[in-house]
């Protein structure tokens, strides 16, 4: 997937959860990504974050941090 498209898609998800109450947007974006994004897509997202995360919504960055926490949930399984 082109980086532009991936960034656009990730930011769209963040944009929705940014409008939701509860203050747990990062968890919700993380849950959405692991429920709907296939590993390859998540891997590409992680790589992009590692490369600086250019143009990603801060909520996506926070979500990625979340996704990486639990053991065994590493993206490149």
């Amino acid at each position, binding site marked *: *997937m*082109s980086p532009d*498209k991936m960034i*656009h*898609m990730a930011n*769209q*998800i963040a*944009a*929705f959860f940014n*409008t*939701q*109450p509860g203050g747990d947007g990062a968890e919700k974006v993380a849950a*959405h990504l*692991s*429920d*709907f*994004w*296939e*590993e*390859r*897509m998540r891997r590409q997202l992680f790589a992009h974050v590692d490369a600086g995360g250019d143009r990603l919504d801060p909520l996506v960055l926070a979500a990625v941090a979340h996704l990486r926490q639990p053991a065994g949930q590493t993206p490149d*399984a």
Partner: protein
Amino acid sequence: MKDFIIPWDDTDFGTPAKSGAPVSLIVDGIEVTVPEGTSVMHAAAEAGIQVPKLCATDSLEAFGSCRLCVVEVEGRRGTPASCTMPVAEGMVVHTQSERVRRIRKGVMELYLSDHPSDPASCIAGRDCELHDMAAVVGLREVRYGPGDNHFQPERDGRDNPRHLPRDESNPYFTFDPAKCIVCSRCVRACDDIQGTYALTIEGRGFDSVVSAGAAGDDFLTSDCVSCGACVQACPTDALIENRVIELGVPVREVITTCAYCGVGCSFKAELNGDQLVRMVPHKGGKANRGHSCVKGRFAWGYANHRERILNPMIRDRVDEPWREVSWDEALGFAADRLERIRKEHGNKALGVITSSRCTNEETYLVQKLARAVFENNNTDTCARVCHSPTGYGLGQTFGTSAGTQDFDSVEHSDVIIVMGANPTDAHPVFASRMKKRLREGAKLIVIDPRRIDLVKSPNVRAEHHLALRPGTNVAVVTALAHVIVTEGLADEDFIRERCDWDEYLAYAEFVRDPRHSPEAIEDLTGVPAAELRAAARTFAKGGNGAIYYGLGVTEHSQGSTTVMGIANLAMLTGNIGREGVGVNPLRGQNNVQGSCDMGSFPHELPGYRHVKNPEVRGIFERLWGVEIDPEPGLRINNMLDAAVDGTFRGLYVQGEDILQSDPDTQHVAAGLAAMDCVIVHDLFLNETANYAHVFLPGSTFLEKDGTFTNAERRINMVRKVMAPRNGYADWEVTQLLANALGANWTYTHPSEIMDEVAATTPSFAGVSFDLIDRLGSVQWPCNEEHPEGTPTMHVDGFMRGKGRFMITEYLATDEKTGPRFPLLLTTGRILSQYNVGAQTRRTDNMVWHDQDVLEIHPHDAENRGIRQGDLVRLASRSGETTLRAEITDRVSPGVVYTTFHHPDTQANVVTTDFSDWATNCPEYKVTAVQVAPTNGPSEWQEDYSAHAARSRRIAPAAE
């Protein structure tokens, strides 16, 4: 094999059934009890007595014009018509007195004296009610010679001025005025059942004739939509199918289900031997109640179209011609390639696309192929590109993606919102049922950028039409909620009882904000604030409120959010959980509902259960003996992206044409071209097949057993009408492919597949072919709690427990107009064509729509020097195409509209790859475009048609 001829009671009771307090009467000595308001004729039929009749039939209200049905009633004078006379308590009726017999004979004699007497001229034969009735009343001879009459072309050696020529303008049926008895059944069918008002009776008395449209019109040029209701209603052969004229009256019938749209009409396939003569809508069908549209009734000839491919074909490279081979060779070739990909690139390089046109059983097998044989979750379906936001949005708010009602429910609605849907074109039979309710006084609110037919059609007028700018759905829906909440119209009792109150309070605070007021969004949406306020009040205060929506809601960047907004509106007004209300996604294709139910999505096993749940995986792992991947798989557009990246290389596509139906055609083509093995399983060499290495011929719905699930969650039976011309039903082909890959599947009949679904999926636990045969159809959930299915959802509580209000903030799509692309393109469908048109383009439906046109407002056209019918270039940042302009004020200034039924226009060359935030459902409904006059096809179109012609070559068979 099962006996597939299902007997059915087709008794015509003469007048419709009524509901009311019981009334008892005696007919010819037999006591019978019927609901108040029932006609004497209907009551007699209940007692087993058929009163002779001509102008009455139980699909129509009585009219009382022929006087053949007269009876005598003790204590009353005269001979009343039994069809128009309501029953009364204690009434004693005689249907066979000497007096009424005499009257009937006289009536019949008059009819027959103005009707051709030569038996060979009667096409309908045993189907002709006129001749039946002559026999029933015992008329043996007609005493009058043919005097002044309508049926002889010549009288006394001169042209008979009363004789009118046959109207053969409609490609599917013929009207012969000479055979018409002017009972007006056709006129009433067109008015009351179809709601089109295309027919009238012209003239009076002996001069009266049935006429289509205005003077000078024929059936084709009139408003007639070729639904066939009049043909069915006609008691003689004045209106009759051309196929019957050609092939004779069929002698056996099989009940089955239409394979076109999500209404899922039941039909009787009527045959002679194994030759299908006609399809007649089935009165017992609970979705259609005996009605149909032009597609299901007439447009099934594609099954025998010469372009249908009947033999498997393969080729090494897509620039080579196809080679016809045996099934064994084709399957072996496919299996080798798939195995090679798996070895070299891993199992995640393979995937499937299930079809929303195939049966539940076939779809189930295709996703099983991915999960059990490829061992991944790379399965998706074209529902991705239409109703995936419904799944997400309703799942979040109600706990299930299911539409909440059955179609009968509309008969109890008082206010109906139709949003982003065009039922008269896309769901015609449901539209007819809705229009009937509207004529009875229900109010209609249309929310659509375009003035769809429902906004203003004969005897139906929308109370409010909110013609919003494409892409602003969320703003409008939220503003409706704003009005309801701030004006104190919310149903707080319902909300307290059924929904999460705290979430409601947060939601109410959100929508109350003045930035969501109709006034604040007027400039953005183009909807006058006063109109929007009025619509909100009408909906909130008008009684039972029902919302019907379509792809104009889902196919947006904020598709899922709009669905949530709609669910909010229904909860806010307490319009959930009973008849007449609800949230009703109008699904496009016949089995979109079913393909989603069957686990076609990459994150869900059958029954909408996420693959991450170990208990759910366990059910299938134990049954299938494989480990199921706990990770979600790739969605269609993700598969194509991965293909371009080189990590996805093999795809089995059953019954879908992703190249034509998916957005951004050039991107789809690039993805397909990058794969090593594309297997297309279809009826025709569709556009996707241009990039395929293996072609497996498919079977039509007439050639297999199985089930379809319509937009009401109704599981309808599809029954084999004839043997598959390609040799195998589609479920058999998938099984052969799986077995070529070593799967060892042993299904011998689709009923076994449904048994497996029932055994693994709680909402289908009670479903079996036997149950469906017994009940005719069943709406899931069907299980121990609901052994006969569930017409209305969320009756006592939401599926998820408490209904959940969701915050729906409007966010502008990134697809924005600007100086280069100043107009917004939105897309849709028309009645006579279906989806990518692969079937309907191969029928006579082409007389109604032979090309896609671009609707443009006169103002925008004038600015660009475009005249009616001009060839124009339609360009977006994705691509460009050309088509003809249709200048109309149905669209607002700044908006243009087209359909996507024809591959040579390919509206999807122009649509972009933006998609719904939650589900990646493409944003078909908003594309920034420019339109300009041109004088030839775009370069892309020329390349494309050259490429298509090249890829479709089939090598002559080598001997």
